[in-house]
């Protein structure tokens, strides 16, 4: 075996860190199993279940037929019976055929049984566009899931958080929707965001669900992002720094329950707020972030701004798609706007 004393700087993609977390937990807890389309033999179309079939065999790592209604419904029953299923909805866009199992069964199992039957399942699902896959394979739908009580919803922006959130999600007695953004998976054909590929410890650790993180401290403006938009915020913050503007950046990490306290504390400090979200704008996460700050009575020096996808289906044409998606330049323009409004 190789000498393992010098791996402290080992980096992983989000895809690999998800697979490592699942594998470690399957080794620790034999009630954990994985089901989904192309998750076993292929290792997941987004690379997040690689190596599991070889390690744990076809009883616990199951390729399913193309019936989300069937295998996600089965997972709810397995969870009621004491197993800890992880199921993959390959694209969140496909939730329509299996949503009854998710929001009417999984999300309500504990409530309807007076807390006697838990639902410890993880539904992992890819989100996001930017690579020309059009309106049925590019959506985020954060708000659609976060709106429904009884489920937790998380989305990592980097491989460290992905491993820790996955371990926390599998151990959580509630259903957890684990969203992962295609642009951050570290799969070359989907684009690669270097900031998502970070050192990941070999050992077991959890990132707490429900806790946002201040990833960059600043004093002039608060930028709130999640998943891919966190990286737009970081890029814009670095650029703003050159103009003498100190931007604080918050990674939500969990969409439900939303860590309102961290966002409010930041907005109270900086007095300016920009929320960046690649889901549809109306009734969305960015709007919820802003509403939380406004309800807290925090006095802002400029009207808050939300940047989100407009309320239209995501276009196929790359020129049109990139015109409507959030990006670093839109965040920079918003920073300029809130700084000028304050004068």
């Amino acid at each position: 075996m190789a000498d393992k004393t010098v791996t402290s700087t080992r980096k992983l993609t989000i895809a690999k860190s998800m697979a490592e977390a699942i594998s470690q937990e399957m080794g620790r807890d034999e009630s954990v199993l994985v089901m989904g389309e192309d998750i076993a033999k292929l290792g997941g179309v987004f690379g997040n279940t690689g190596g599991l079939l070889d390690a744990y065999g076809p009883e616990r790592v199951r390729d399913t037929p193309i019936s989300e209604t069937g295998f996600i419904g089965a997972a709810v029953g397995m969870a009621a019976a004491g197993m800890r299923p992880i199921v993959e909805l390959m694209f969140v866009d496909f939730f329509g055929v299996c949503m009854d199992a998710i929001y009417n069964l999984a999300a309500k199992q504990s409530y309807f049984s007076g807390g006697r039957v838990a639902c410890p399942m993880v539904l992992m699902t890819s989100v996001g566009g930017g690579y020309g896959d059009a309106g049925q394979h590019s959506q985020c739908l954060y708000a659609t899931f976060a709106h429904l009580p009884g489920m937790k919803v998380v989305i990592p922006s980097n491989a460290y958080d992905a491993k820790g959130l996955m371990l926390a999600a599998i151990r959580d007695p509630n259903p957890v929707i684990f969203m992962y953004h295609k642009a951050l998976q570290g799969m070359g054909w989907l684009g690669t965001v270097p900031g998502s590929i970070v050192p990941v410890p070999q050992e077991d650790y959890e990132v707490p669900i429900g806790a946002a993180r201040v990833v960059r401290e600043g004093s002039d403006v608060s930028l709130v992002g999640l998943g891919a938009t966190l990286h737009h915020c970081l890029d814009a913050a670095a650029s703003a720094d050159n103009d003498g503007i100190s931007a604080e950046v918050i990674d939500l990490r969990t969409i439900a329950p939303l860590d309102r306290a961290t966002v409010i504390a930041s907005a109270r400090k900086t007095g300016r707020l920009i929320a960046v979200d690649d889901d549809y704008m109306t009734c969305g996460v960015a709007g919820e972030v802003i509403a939380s700050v406004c309800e807290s009575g925090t006095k802002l020096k400029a009207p808050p701004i939300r940047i989100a996808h407009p309320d239209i289906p995501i276009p196929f044409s790359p020129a049109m798609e990139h015109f409507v998606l959030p990006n670093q330049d839109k965040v920079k323009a918003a920073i300029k706007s809130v700084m000028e409004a304050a004068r």
Partner: protein
Amino acid sequence: MSEIIVPTDLWDDDSLGVISTWLFEDGDAVSQGDIVAEVMNEKISFDIAAPASGTLAIDVPTESEVSQGDAIGRILSA
């Protein structure tokens, strides 16, 4: 010194792959067998392992196209 070679049996034809990511920094200490890079061909990702223990030298950067058999980096004696 050992060269890090893209193995010649990863995919069936002579099409190009691309280095999707390096998982260590240039100059990092690595151990034999560590996955140091990922190379992608036709949407399939392949792991590239360090052939020896030592100091990693990256010669071909991320996003570059590579052929099977190409040397993409070296492991220098520690």
